């Protein structure tokens, strides 16, 4: 199988990079695979902005699939991204706004992993719902710690506060999320 990233030697490295939220891996995957998706979308009545939207959504599906061990790391990410992006764009084309447009390739790519994709999509919606509950201040601290994997001292220095304050802010933000989820669960139990 062809190496996926120019700076890596094995195909599994792109998956490891995604698991670590490595910015270089993300950027390499974007640079390498976006043109194919863009080409397809533009041939089918879409703009470059449309292509970016479906490509980024497809990257999210790839990322979560890797994080949760739903695809084998040896799989070709280019093929995966293209299949998800194509199906997403075909869904857009079927929407009311695009009913009258001519579609060059309209067949949906059927794949045994489509069932997994549907499950992943639901999970992404659910996770976005959780993230939406965080205010900007919490996102600022939590993003740096959990996504960028910066240590507390680095975050504290960057924000001009004490390390202990960042540690407390992180704890309090996560407890707010926990309290919110608890309230939702209580509400569901009362209704159900």
């Amino acid at each position, binding site marked *: 199988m062809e190496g996926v990233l120019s700076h890596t030697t094995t195909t599994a490295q792109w998956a490891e990079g995604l698991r670590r*939220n490595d910015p270089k891996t993300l950027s390499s995957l974007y640079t390498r695979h976006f043109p194919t998706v863009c080409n397809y979308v533009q041939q089918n009545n879409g703009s470059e902005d449309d292509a970016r939207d479906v490509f980024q959504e497809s990257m999210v599906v790839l990322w979560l699939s890797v994080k949760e061990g739903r695809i084998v790391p040896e799989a070709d990410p280019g093929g995966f991204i293209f299949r998800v992006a194509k199906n997403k764009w075909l869904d857009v084309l079927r929407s009311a706004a695009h009913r009258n447009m001519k579609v060059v390739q309209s067949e949906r790519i059927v794949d045994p992993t489509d069932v997994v994709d549907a499950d992943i999509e639901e999970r992404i919606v659910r996770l976005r719902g959780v*993230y939406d509950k965080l205010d900007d201040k919490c996102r600022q601290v939590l993003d740096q710690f959990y996504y960028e994997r910066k240590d507390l001292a680095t975050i504290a220095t960057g924000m001009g506060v004490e390390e202990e304050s960042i540690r407390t802010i992180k704890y309090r933000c996560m407890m707010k999320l926990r309290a919110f989820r608890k309230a939702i669960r209580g509400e569901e139990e009362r209704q159900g």
Partner: protein
Amino acid sequence: MMNGMLDRDTFEAIEAYVLGTMPALERERFEERLRTDADLLAEVEQQTEHIRAVELGGLQRALKDIGRQQAAPAPGRSWMPYLKVAAAVAVVLCAALWYLNRPTTGERLYAAHYQPDPGLPVAMSATDDQAFQDAMVAYKLGDHAEAKAKWSTLLKDRPKSDTLRYYTAMAALGAGEFGAAIPVLDDVAHERTSPFASKAAWYLFLACTHEGDTARANAIHFDPADPHAAEAAAIQQAWR
């Protein structure tokens, strides 16, 4: 799921387990507990989901950033002459705007000497005076308007608290609301027994300097041992 608050030690243990940063031996013990403690297992599952949600938010931001960088068109050669003219016009306009809106002497001195109070360390307890701590978090993160609003609400119940009054004034200064900060600082500066009196006097001096009220600024006397005495004298000298 555990009822009530999750203490910080347990939260951080779960976090280390989920992030894979827990030492091997500790991890073994933790997994042993997970086999018999359904509440702890539920907490681990929930925290895994919360961390994943935060990571997803970060990923979407990162993807948008990469998309924006790649979409930005590089300026073509043929646009260069127009860009040069546009840049020259922009420089002239900026210079004119700066001249019209240039800072006053007081504003310049204030900008040169003002260092925001770093605030108090945010306490570990999530229940101890939570409203005050929430405001302190906002203040530390530069959200001065929110901090001021929260502390002002608390001040209604505790109008004599010098801590609340001082930090309300600090938030007002941070928000550029000098008119709101000055009377509060004046009050605290005159309470000689308050641990905030000296700092309040210094910030009052700076706020009056910003507003060009040299008479009021000069009326504030600094003890020679005060850490700000020399700086205040230098500002007074600059006014002359």
